[in-house]
């Protein structure tokens, strides 16, 4: 049976989910930036945004997270741990690329040490994803062999019905079913045409690219210098990337006590690989950009059999100098052929 979630029922859904102990989080435009934040009412949601400026990543892997507090005593150091809040939540209205990215990062955060902060949040979260019916010039999920309706990482997939009245509900997991049980009564079963999903053109040939990247000959290629010549070395692409997951530890506080924090870090920064000696094995911006591409499309797939990219296109969309993965992989595709 086709189940339809009508847009005008959203308020009731939120109320029921709240009653069932879920926090509801969705895309909003606030203070000139679009991002995911808790909502009380459906009107706070901005579901028309193709893709938020900031990703859902920060809901699992915050930009800065206190891990423990320490106090330096005369004889010993006392510590006190911080843990994630431990609340069930529904992320309503993420896009397939963002949701996929979370699934892509799962093995990374769990291959040896299981990162509590990540997995506790992952386990407490129901990802309600809305398939894309629109795309922009930077979207590239199809080039990554994903799609505007990829189920990867989602617990529920919503497919817009024509006219924008609501969504077809597709349950993808037990966690999703549980959340939807709470609002089953509100679902409609009237048949409605699904709107076709967005037609995202294929922008590069991933297989060709991966083969080129895997060839050790190309590691020292002049290509890297050429392609990254205008890179200014900021962290925009990495911090806005849903799959980028590098972090750094910082102790902050006064001379007696403080907090150890886990902060986002970026391979774009010169400091990322700086040694204490002053030597920097990745001393040029081109070597850093190469690392980013290699990591995403060579090393990561080598270890986890997935590309560390879900094709959201934020790196290109937000780059201050109009660079990005798309251009690089397009150029590699050309070069390789």
């Amino acid at each position, binding site marked *: 049976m086709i189940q339809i979630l009508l847009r005008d029922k959203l308020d009731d859904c939120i109320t029921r989910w709240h009653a069932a102990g879920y926090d509801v989080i969705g895309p909003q435009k606030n203070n000139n930036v679009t991002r995911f934040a808790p909502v009380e009412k459906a009107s706070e949601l901005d579901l028309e945004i193709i893709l938020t400026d900031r990703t859902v990543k920060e809901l699992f892997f915050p930009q800065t997270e206190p891990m423990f507090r320490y106090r*330096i005593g005369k004889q010993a150091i006392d510590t006190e741990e911080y843990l994630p809040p431990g609340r069930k939540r529904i992320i309503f209205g993420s896009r397939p690329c963002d949701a996929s990215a979370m699934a892509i990062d799962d093995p990374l955060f769990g291959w040896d040490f299981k990162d509590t902060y990540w997995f506790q949040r992952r386990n407490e979260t129901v990802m309600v994803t809305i398939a894309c019916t629109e795309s922009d010039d930077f979207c590239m999920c199809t080039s990554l062999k994903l799609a505007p309706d990829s189920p990867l990482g989602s617990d529920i997939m919503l497919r817009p019905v024509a006219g924008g009245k609501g969504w077809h509900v597709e349950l993808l997991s037990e966690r999703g079913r549980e959340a939807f049980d709470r609002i089953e009564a509100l679902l409609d079963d009237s048949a409605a045409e699904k709107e076709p999903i967005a037609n995202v053109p294929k922008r590069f040939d991933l297989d060709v690219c991966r083969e080129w990247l895997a060839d050790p000959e190309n590691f020292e290629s002049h290509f890297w210098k050429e392609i990254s010549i205008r890179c200014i070395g900021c962290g925009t692409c990495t911090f806005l990337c849903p799959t980028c997951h590098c972090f750094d530890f910082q102790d902050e506080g006064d001379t007696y006590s403080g907090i150890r924090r886990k902060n986002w870090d970026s391979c774009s920064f010169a400091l990322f690989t700086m040694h204490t000696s002053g030597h920097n094995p990745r001393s040029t911006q081109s070597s850093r950009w190469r690392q980013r591409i290699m990591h995403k499309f060579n090393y990561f797939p080598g270890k986890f059999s997935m590309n560390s990219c879900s094709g959201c296109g934020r790196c290109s969309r937000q780059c201050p100098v109009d660079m990005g993965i798309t251009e690089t992989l397009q150029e590699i595709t050309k070069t390789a052929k």
Partner: protein
Amino acid sequence: MAKIGVFICHCGENIAARIDCARLLSAMDDHPGVSVSLDYKYFCSDPGQENVKKAIRENNLTGIVVAACSPRMHEATFRKACAEAGLNPYLCEIANIREQCSWVHSDREKATEKAIDITRSLIEKVKRNNELQPIEVPVTRKALVIGGGIAGIQAALDIANAGQEVVLVEREPSLGGHMAQLSETFPTLDCSQCIMTPRMVEAAQHPKIELLTYSEIEQVDGFIGNFTVKIRKKARYVDMKTCTGCGDCIQKCPQKKISDEFDCNLGKRPAIYTPFAQAVPNIPVIDKENCTYFKNGKCRVCAKACPIDCINFEMQDEFVDIEVGAIVVATGFQIQNTAMYGEYGYGKYPDVITGLQFERLASASGPTAGKIMRPSDGKEPETVVFIQCAGSRDPSKGVKYCSKICCMYTSKHAMLYAHKVHGGKAHVFYMDIRAAGKGYDEFTRRAIEEDEASYLRGRVSKVWQENGKLMVRGVDTLLGKPVEIAADMVVLATAITPQPDAKEFAKVIGIGCDEYGFYNEAHLKLRPVETATAGIYLAGACQSPKDIPDSVAQASACASKVIGLFSRDRLEREPVIAMNNEATCSGCWGCFVACPYGAIEKKDILNRSGELIKRVAFVNPGLCQGCGTCVTFCRSNSIDLAGFTEKQIFAEVMGL
């Protein structure tokens, strides 16, 4: 791992009365990194310091904090104790819990809390202190003395007689200063010229003294032991080497109507002149402003008169750079213009004159050859009124301070007048008679009792001219009556002020001055001849109004400081200086622009094949004085200041 010792001084009751030292001690005991904490009644005492040294040795301490009085009192003491115990003296910090805590707070609880904060934040600082080694700099054994009055001459002679070289610079054409203008000197009434001129000649002929008259200091760079001074030798237009001082040129100069500054404008002089007959060097200068040739391009009478052709109108100012190790500033004083007292009529009535003008009238070498005559008509005054404090001790119109010498010279004037004008009557209006000094009070008593000067305690409200007399209206506060005196002459005891350009000159040489322009000593009581700038000393009235004995004494004190400095080849300096991290420096040169001492140099970093990689800042340790202005400017945090590093201050603030 830090092993810090904390020493809490009770300072008798000074600290212990307001601060719970036991609580402070136990708080420090619990502080991470503290190996030993002790308290004691007086840590500055010998046994107290022995305790500190013992604790350092026994516990192998890596730093100490002494919670006691201000570091300005005993930092040096405890640093020395550290050094004696084998700990680098810069691993010592002083927590000021007396001047800035126990003495200013009455709430024992809160004062104790504050003392804990102060002490622990310095523990955090000292943990990050580095061992510093004193910087050694060479000493140039040559002194510069600025000013050729009695103070400068005395200092120069004392230094030179100790075998050290001296450059003596005087901006006027002759040595002598104000003392050369005086008639006789209190309290002995010996003739000023008689005691002064031999000194001038001695200075000029001394093999260790290089005399530069008619010269001014343009620029002073460098630091103690190593100053570079640029001197402008003003063009005299007379060749010093060949001139014999015959004076023919002076005689022949057609321009004879120039007010004579040396005679306080009571006499006239030509355009080519020596300031006074006994001038040293006895070589004239041409006053370019008033010389007919310089004004009109015609004349050259002096050149024609000169038998050996030593007049040179083409002469230019010359600049010389000298290297000296110490500087004595003896730039003297000026007297205040008294025009602000309209009621005294100075400038309006020619017979209202200043004390210095009276000196010239009374001087045997003065414009009247020592005869007391009224400037207006040359008559001998029968009655003279002296008004003391004509500017001094008057915050509303004059200056707040006492000019110190006027009581004495007014007595002297009254006395000289009585000696020279028999039957003349001297009246002195005074506020207080300040005659402290050897033989001084006796001297004023003599003026009153033997020379019958009439001393009236009170102020003068008005002076006006009536029937050829100067009417002086004042008050005798002892009788409580107004007084009116018909006088022939009125003499104002004007205030002593700094030289008009004293403030600007202070900046040229890099010393401080007070609101008036008198130069600041490093410590009024304990370091009265040193300035805050190491290697620069003060002598005479440039520091404050002084009489001749005081000026001479201070000059000799300066000389002893300089001789002491020159007794060593090298000099140790505080290692609190900036240093640059060449790896992170971008060479933006903000520090170069900001440094008040020009201590930042540009250093080329070359690669192995000698090619320039980059240019970075380098701090010259000899020039850096350790202010840290560069550190604050440096955007990349590349420059840092030893002793007050970014890490230390950060820890100190974050440890509060």
